[in-house]
Each structure stands twice: as C-alpha cells, then as structure tokens.
C-alpha cells in the first residue's frame, strides 16, 4: 500500500481501524504541507494506539451503511445504536425460526494475526505488566462483558478520573467521587475507576487520568482487574501534574487495554482534550462543567 499523507481524502478505506474517528477541523482546511494532523484522534498521543492487528469490522445488517466508509468514522462507532453496537462482529440475522438450518448467523469476525504484532491475550487468573515491551492487551468477549473492569491506584499519591465516549456519541469526564448514570455504568472514586461491563455495548472508549498533588509526590502503580482474576499492572509515572496511564477501546465487542505514554500534562482538561474529547465543557482546567456532552 502506498501512503500519501498529503491527500488523506484519497486514502484507501481502513475497515480495521474501527475505533478511530476522524475529527473534522472546525474552520481551517487541512494545510497540504503539514502531513501530521495534530487534531487527530487522541490515541496517537500514546504513540502506539493503532491496533493494526484488528480484523476488519464485520458490519452488521443494521450498520451496513458504514461499509467502505473506513476512516470517515465520524458516524461509525460513535453513532451506532446500542443494538447495532452489540451486533458488531456477529452479524446475526435472527431468522432461525422461519428456516432453521439455512439461516444460521454468520460466524463472529476473527482477528487476523499479523506477523510481528500478535494480539496479546490473557488467560483467566494471569498477570501481565503493560509497558513499552507489551503496550496492549486484548480481552476476550467474556472478559470484556462480565463483571466489573476496575482500575485502581494501589500506591503513590495520584487521584483517578476518566473521560469516556458512548456509542450514541455522548462523552463526559468524571473526576473523583462521581458516578455517570443511574445504573451506574462508570464509578470513579478517589483511587479507582470501575466500569459495569453489563453496559459494555454502550462504551466506545475511555481513558484513565491520574492527577498528582502539587509538589513532590511518589509515582505509583495502577492495577487493572477483570472478573476472572486477570491482573494488569501499569506504572503511574510522574513527570507532570497529570498523566494518562491507560486507554480502553471497545473493538468489535473486545476491550483493548493500552498503556499510554501521555505524561507531563498540566491539567485534566489538557489531558482530556489531548485525547480527543472536544465536546466536554469545563469550568476551569481541573473542574468539568458536569453533565454528559
């Protein structure tokens, strides 16, 4: 494939990057001699966000309009309904009762492994340290949808928050001590962020944000745990007031957890905006205006 960074509009469709959304510039058009789009999705900030191992999304009947859209993902994952989001990767046709043997649903999409960049999985009860050597792990469909996914700061002085985007396009930032919804889907306490995975079909992505107190404070460790006893460890380094240690992307019903390298950020607002949540309103750099944008 030939890449022409000066003409993104002519780029070949990339059905494998289902979790990326192209952002439109508000006013000025893209400058032709500036190949890097600094407004691009936040996952680029981390340096290794593109899950190139992901198989092309198998678009369900309901979301068939997205066929071939690929990088114009303004409408893809964000606007999928709860129902169609849940069908990604399965393409059930639900006609079993009228013609039992002949209308069985298509197989779920399988990830096509790519030499040199295998999808890292984690068996039940296993431990793994995420970092430069192993930056990402993909949870299976059970790990991605049963129980709670919890990220907890077990040492250091950081308080946790998170920004998230839902399948209906809404996004919000949650600081310590707030909950997101009636269920509630997400709960953020001072030292932990937890997601109720019964609602995982609503989730497109979230990023965990660590805020350190002013002055000297020791770095720490972030532990991510799943219902089946898996444990991921990530360093909570401190080279600034705010860091983003972890991002979570829902790719075809499987959660991809990635250690981010975004540090030296000055505020939660800077971190959230760097990761592409432009619709969230702020009272100041540390205080979200509240509500779900």
């Amino acid at each position, binding site marked *: 494939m030939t890449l022409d960074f000066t003409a993104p509009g002519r780029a070949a469709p990339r059905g494998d990057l289902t979790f990326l959304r192209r952002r439109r510039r508000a006013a000025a058009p893209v400058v032709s001699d500036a190949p890097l789009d600094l407004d691009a999705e936040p996952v680029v900030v981390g340096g290794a966000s593109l899950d190139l191992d992901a198989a092309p999304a198998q678009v369900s009947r309901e979301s068939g309009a997205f066929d071939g859209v690929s990088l114009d993902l303004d409408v893809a994952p964000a606007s999928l309904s709860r129902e169609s989001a849940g069908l990604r990767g399965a393409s059930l046709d639900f006609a*079993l009762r009228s013609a039992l043997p002949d209308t*069985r*649903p298509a197989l779920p999409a399988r990830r096509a492994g790519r030499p040199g960049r295998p999808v890292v999985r984690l068996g039940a009860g296993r431990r793994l340290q995420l970092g430069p050597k192993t930056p990402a792990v993909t949870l299976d469909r059970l790990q991605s*949808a*049963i129980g709670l996914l919890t990220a907890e700061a077990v040492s250091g002085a950081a308080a946790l928050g998170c920004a998230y985007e839902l399948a209906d396009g809404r996004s919000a930032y949650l600081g310590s001590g707030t909950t997101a919804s009636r269920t509630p889907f997400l709960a953020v306490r001072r030292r932990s962020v937890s997601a*109720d995975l*019964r609602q995982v079909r609503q989730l497109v992505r979230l990023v965990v944000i660590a805020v350190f107190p002013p002055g000297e404070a020791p770095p720490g460790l972030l532990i991510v745990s799943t*219902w089946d006893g898996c444990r991921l460890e990530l360093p909570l380094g401190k080279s600034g007031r705010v860091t983003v240690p972890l991002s979570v992307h829902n790719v075809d019903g499987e959660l991809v957890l990635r250690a981010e390298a975004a540090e030296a950020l000055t505020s939660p607002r800077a971190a959230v905006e760097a990761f592409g949540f432009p619709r969230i309103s702020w009272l100041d750099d540390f205080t979200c205006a509240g509500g779900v944008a």
Partner: protein
Amino acid sequence: MAALRRGSNVELTREIPDLPGVVLGVRWEAGPEPALADSLVMAAILCDGARRARSAEHFVFFNQLTEPSRSVALSGDDAEQVEVVFGAVPDDVSRIVAVLYANEGNGLRRGLGRLRTLTVRGLDPRNDRELVRSENLAPALDGETALALGEVYRHNGGWKFKVLGEGYRAGIAALAEDYGVLR
C-alpha cells in the same frame, strides 16, 4: 400444562419427533428493583459429556451471540432467549445449559431471591408454542447471584429438557468455574 419441578425432565423429541430445535426462554418479574433487572444476563453453555464447556467460545451471551458451530444463538435483543438447532449441534456437545446471572455492577449486590418470579421454558422454534415450563424458581432462591436454569441434553438419540434450578452464591465466577468456562 403442568409446570416442571426442579430435577424433572421431559423427552422433547419423543413427544414431538420432528422437532428441529428448541428455544430456551427465561422470564422474570423483578418487582420494585430495576437495578436487579438491569443487571440480569441470560447465557448458554455448550458442554461435553463431563459437563464441561468446550471452550470460552462456547459461552453464548449478549457479547458473544453465537458459538463456532452456530447451532446455538442468542435470539432477540432482550437477551431472554437462546435458540438451539438440534441437527447442527456438534457430536461432542452433549448438553446445552441455560444460565442466568446478575452482573456485579457498581451498585449494591442483589441476589436472585429478590425476584418475584423466575421461570425457564422451552418453545417450539417453528411457531413459538410453549412446550415445557418450569415451576417458579424464585421462592427457593436467596442470595444466589447466578443460576443454572435448565438444560437440553442428548438421550438415546433424541433430546431431553431438564429443569435444574441450581444456584451459586459466588455468582457467575463460581458457575463458570463449575462448568469449566475459565481456562
């Protein structure tokens, strides 16, 4: 039709020889607690002769709508029914167990004993006619957060349905361990 009690079984394909499959459905009344109803998940586990799941891919639920052979699939969007096509079930799958669990959420942990009613039933997939129905399983429950509702299994070349009603206080993790889902 009389409701089947726990442990009771019925020979589906002996009663209806041309039955092509069965729809396992679960019904519940949650009463005044919507949080419990919101957290409930129905699933099916395809097991071998030793009652062990063939693999994690043989756990069918809302985030894995079918399994490799496509003989068992979640039907409907409300996650209350699982459809089994007898002729497509692989030979090494001896039974399909229908389960219900309350997902551990961010709120209070609520047991299935808070449900007013809970029944599992089998339907003819051709016309949705109810073939079998369990007794109300809820009164015998307390703090259990996962339950093996019932199973369809091979018997003398045909298929039978049995009401299980076996609860797990330690939730879906204990049930998954028991059926060998966790590897």
